[in-house]
């Protein structure tokens, strides 16, 4: 059975999410939801020397939102905070390898929004408009 957006890799991350759960001593926690469908993502970050040392996520929602958040945790690990701040929508879509279309794009971007919220929160900086508009 083929499906355009439910590729095996997305279903695999949805069924077996990587980096799922809690960090023992996170430096920052961030959480947000997509009001349209009620998807929830929480990210916990361990930050050391301006870099993301470790990350876990928790959440509830559709396959796109959960798989995308899980893939994102693998990508941001080891990145500097500035690198995370500059990540874009395209980076996430490249990770997923699909174009979820205009109605589902917000599901795909929820994880990115939350990880950025965490970074901005850790740095004590105001949330940029770009981040607010992701979802």
């Amino acid at each position: 059975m083929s499906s355009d957006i439910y590729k095996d890799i997305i279903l695999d991350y949805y069924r077996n999410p990587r980096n799922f759960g809690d960090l023992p001593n996170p430096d920052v926690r961030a959480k947000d939801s997509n009001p349209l469908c009620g998807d929830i993502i929480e990210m916990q970050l361990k930050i050391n020397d301006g870099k993301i040392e470790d990350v876990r996520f928790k959440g509830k929602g559709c396959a796109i939102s959960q798989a995308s958040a899980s893939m994102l945790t693998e990508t941001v690990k080891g990145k500097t905070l500035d690198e995370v701040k500059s990540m874009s929508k395209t980076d996430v879509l490249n990770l997923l390898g699909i174009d979820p279309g205009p109605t589902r794009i917000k599901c795909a971007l929820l994880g990115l929004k939350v990880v950025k919220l965490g970074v901005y929160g850790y740095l004590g900086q105001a949330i940029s408009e770009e981040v607010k508009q992701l979802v």
Partner: protein
Amino acid sequence: MVERLTTINAVKIREDFPILKRRVNGKPLIYFDNAATSQKPSAVIEAISKYYSEYNSNIHRGIHKLAEEATLAHEEAREKVAKFINSNRTEEIVFTRNATESINLVAYTWGRANLGPDDKIVLTIMEHHSNIVPWQMLAQEKKTKIEFVKIDKEGYLAQKDIQEMIDDKTKLVCVTHASNVLGTINPVNEIAKTAHRHGALVLVDAAQSVPHVRVNVREMDCDFMAFSGHKMLGPTGIGVLYGKSEHMENMPPFLGGGEMIREVHTTGASWKDLPYKYEAGTPNVAGAIGLGTAIDYLRKIGMENIHEYEKEITSYALSKMDQVKGLVTYGPRDVRHRVGVLAFNLGDIHAHDLASIMDEEGVAIRSGHHCAQPLMEFLDIPAASRASFYIYNTKEEVDSFIAVLEKARKLFSP
């Protein structure tokens, strides 16, 4: 077994709806999102086009030919609406934008003038947000109490709550005629009797019933009724508020402006008679004409026939859905007590994922909370998918829909 054969020929009816020829993602469109909005027959599209190309004009005040024709068509639409719901007075029919605006009109006018801190509004847990939020806004302003009638396991309103909650403090009971999630057809006639016995008025949200079953406001004896044109083959942007003239005459106006005034002076203004008092500004003339044409179309088929056909297709869909492993439906099992709105969940597949898979196959269904979050909370589900039928849907389409359900189930099974 004898089956009642309906006179509806869906295949023939489909020819009247140009959009049904469309393909979506390379597949024939299967439109199962009728509870959100219905598709439009050519007759409606042409009536709107004819108005704009032949007699477009502002109404009521012009002394020229076009204004006369447009006014006549607009008022003729009002008569069609009145007859359709068996009101014998056209002044009881107010045109609004949609059911939501109709309900807000009552909240802002009757509600503000009549409710206070010692009063109570009774709602039900299955109301659409449009029949909850206006009352919450009003209750906050007037410190009025709100109580919600719950539902039983099958999705029927709890009789005990109805009897206990509607008391002498109750000034208004707001109830949906048919639920946009459960499909339940509520016993509004009995609820109106109970409410009236306690001196309360009744507002019926008929957005999901007027398009599908015969509705008779005089038999129902409701005080107000709200519905939308776009769910009953008409255009968007036109809705109806029915209100008994004994209430409507004494309520203050809703929006102020042109069309609704008798006289305006620097010292104040006086209002027109019903229904114009509640229709400020240039109305949606094309919308009203389109709605009138939609009513002609529905009457030609016959509301009894429509109801019978939808029972048949709903019953067929329910029996097929029961065979899909892990599928749960919500609402009454007895199709005599429900409309063709089927909310469901399939295993732990999120409703949005299911809707996406459906869309890939050209099947349009709804997913989410369906603007009924209190009901979702009560059912303890974050979201649900919903398939809803109309006269142009066929059993073959139901079969295709079932095949996609099976596909989704296999795709998501570990």
